[in-house]
C-alpha cells in the first residue's frame, strides 16, 4: 500500500516536473526577445512619435495658413520665410508662460489630465502599418510597431480611453464651466463611438480580419474599401470629427457659451498639451481613415510588387510611406477645410444627429453589407 502510494506520488511529481519543463520550454520559444528586436522596436517607436509630433506641430501652422486662405488673408508670415518657424515661436511662447495651478484644484489630477490626453492620442499609432517591410543588413524590419490580430479593437480601446483626459482635467480644475464642458465632451464622445463601431463592423464583414496589416494587403491586391463601403466611410468620417472635438463638433470648448471649455483653468504647456493632443488625434485619425478605407500605404494606380522588383524593396517601402502620408495630408487639409467653413452645432442637434441619424444609418449599412456578404458566399437562396 505504502509503495503504491509512493509510486503514485512520485509519478505525480514527475508529471508535474514534466509539465513545468514544458512550461519553461514554451516560454523560451515564445518570449525569446533578443536585444536587437527591442532596439529595433524602440527606434521605430521613437521615429513614429517624432514624426507624429512634427506633423502635429506643422498642422497648427497649416491650420492658420488654411484659415488665412479661406478668409482671404495672409495667415502667419513673420517668423522665417512664409512664417515657417511660427510653430516653434508658439511652442516657446507656451513654455515661457507662467504655469498657474489653481489653489482650489486637485493638483495631482490637474497635472494628470493633459498627460493622459497626450498619451492616449499617441497610443493608436502602434498598430497602424506605416509601410511594408524594409531590409537593413539582412534583417527584415516591418514598418509597423505591433501587428496584433485584434488591431481594430485595440484602436477602439484607446479611443474609449480618450475621454478620461478631458473628464479628469475638467473635474480637477474645480470650475463649473470646465466640469460642464468635460461632461459634454464625454457624452459626445461616447455617443459617437457607437456609430463609429457599427460602421467598422460592416467593414470587418468584408475584410474578415481585424489586423490592419491584412486589411491594407487586401486593398493593395484588390480595390480600396471606400468602393465597397461609401456610407460606412461617411459615418466613420463624421464620427472621427466628433472624436477629435473638431468643428462642427467642438462643443467641449465652445468659447461663446462655456468660456474656454474644459481647459479654461489651464495655462502654459499644460494647455499646450491639450491643444496639441487635438492635432495628434487629427493626424492619427487621418492615418486610420487612409488605412481602413483608402488602401493605407498602397500606391494608387501602380502594382506595388512589380514596382518593388524594379527599384528594390527598401525604396518601395519609402514610396509607400510617402503615399500614406500624402493621403494623411489630404485628410488633415479636409479637417481644416471643414473647420473654417461650417459653423458649430447646437448641443441638442449634435445628440440628435448622433443617436437618431448616424446610428440607424450605420445599422442599415451593417445589415445590407451582411446580406450581400451572405449571398456572395452562399449564392442566391431562392
Amino acid at each position, binding site marked *: 500500500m505504502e509503495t503504491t502510494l509512493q509510486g503514485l506520488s512520485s509519478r505525480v511529481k514527475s508529471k508535474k516536473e514534466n509539465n513545468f519543463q514544458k512550461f519553461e520550454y*514554451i516560454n523560451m520559444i*515564445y*518570449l525569446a526577445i533578443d536585444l536587437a528586436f527591442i532596439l529595433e522596436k524602440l527606434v521605430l517607436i521613437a521615429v513614429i512619435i517624432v514624426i507624429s509630433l512634427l506633423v502635429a506641430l506643422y498642422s497648427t501652422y497649416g491650420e492658420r495658413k488654411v484659415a488665412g486662405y479661406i478668409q482671404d488673408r495672409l495667415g502667419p508670415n513673420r517668423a522665417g520665410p512664409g512664417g515657417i518657424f511660427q510653430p516653434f515661436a508658439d511652442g516657446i511662447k507656451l513654455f515661457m508662460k507662467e504655469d498657474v495651478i489653481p489653489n482650489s484644484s486637485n493638483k495631482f489630477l490637474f497635472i494628470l489630465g493633459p498627460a493622459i490626453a497626450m498619451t492616449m492620442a499617441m497610443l493608436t499609432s502602434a498598430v497602424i502599418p506605416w509601410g511594408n517591410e524594409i531590409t537593413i543588413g539582412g534583417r527584415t524590419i516591418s514598418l509597423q510597431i505591433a501587428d*496584433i490580430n485584434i488591431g481594430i*479593437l485595440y484602436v*477602439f*480601446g484607446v479611443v*474609449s480611453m480618450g475621454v478620461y483626459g478631458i473628464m479628469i482635467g475638467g473635474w480637477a480644475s474645480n470650475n463649473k464651466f470646465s466640469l460642464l464642458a468635460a*461632461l459634454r465632451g464625454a457624452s459626445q464622445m461616447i455617443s459617437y463611438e457607437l456609430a463609429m463601431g457599427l460602421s467598422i463592423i460592416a467593414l470587418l464583414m468584408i475584410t474578415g480580419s481585424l489586423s490592419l496589416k491584412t486589411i491594407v494587403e487586401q486593398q493593395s491586391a484588390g480595390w480600396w474599401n471606400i468602393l465597397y463601403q461609401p456610407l460606412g466611410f461617411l459615418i466613420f468620417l463624421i464620427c472621427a470629427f466628433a472624436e477629435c472635438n473638431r468643428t462642427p463638433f467642438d462643443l467641449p470648448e465652445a468659447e461663446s457659451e462655456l468660456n474656454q471649455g474644459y481647459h479654461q483653468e489651464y495655462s502654459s504647456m499644460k494647455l499646450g498639451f491639450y491643444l496639441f493632443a487635438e492635432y495628434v488625434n487629427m493626424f492619427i485619425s487621418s492615418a486610420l481613415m487612409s488605412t481602413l478605407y483608402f488602401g493605407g500605404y498602397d500606391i494608387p494606380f501602380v502594382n506595388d510588387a512589380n514596382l518593388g522588383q524594379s527599384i528594390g524593396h527598401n525604396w518601395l517601402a519609402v514610396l509607400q510611406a510617402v503615399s500614406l502620408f500624402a493621403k494623411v495630408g489630404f485628410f488633415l487639409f479636409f479637417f481644416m477645410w471643414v473647420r473654417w467653413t461650417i459653423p458649430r452645432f447646437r448641443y441638442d442637434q449634435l445628440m440628435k444627429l448622433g443617436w437618431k441619424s448616424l446610428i440607424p444609418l450605420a445599422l442599415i449599412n451593417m445589415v445590407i453589407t451582411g446580406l450581400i456578404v451572405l449571398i456572395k458566399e452562399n449564392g442566391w437562396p431562392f
Partner: protein
Amino acid sequence: MNITHILFWILTLMALGSALMVITSKNPVYSVLFLIATFFAISGHYILLNAQFLAIVNLIVYAGAIMVLFLFVIMLMNLNAETEPQKNKWLKFAGTIAGGCLLLIMVAAIKDADAKSTIVLMKQGETGLIHNLGNVLFKDYVVPFEISSVLFLSAMVGAVVLGKKE
C-alpha cells in the same frame, strides 16, 4: 526569472495594489481611477494567457464605458472626500469580519480544488484568439449566444423605457 515572470509579478502587484487603493482612498474619484488601473492590470494578465480578445473587451467595456458612467455620476453629484459619509466604527468592524469570512471560505474551497495543481501554460492555448473564439461562439454555442443577446436587448429596451419616464 524570465520576462514572463517579471511581467506577471508587476501586473499582480499593480492589480492588488490598486484594488486595495480602491477601497482605502477617501476620495470617490480616486477610487474610480484606481479601479480603472485594476482593469488595466487584469487585462495584462489576460494577454499573458494569450486571451487577447478578452483583454481588449475588458478594457473597452469596463474601463472605457462603465467607468465613464461611474465618473459621470460621481462628478455630477460632486462627491468629495469631505462629503463622503463616514460609517461608524462598529459597522466597519462588522464589514471587515464579513469580508474576512468570504476570503476564508474562498481560500478553503480553492485549497483542495484540482485547478490548483494545473500549471497554466502561458502563451499557449489558442482559444483566446479572436478567430477560434468566433468559430466556437457561432458554431458550437449559437443558441446560448443568441439567447444572451436577446437578454441584452431586453435590458437595453428596459433602460430606455425607464429613462423616458418623466
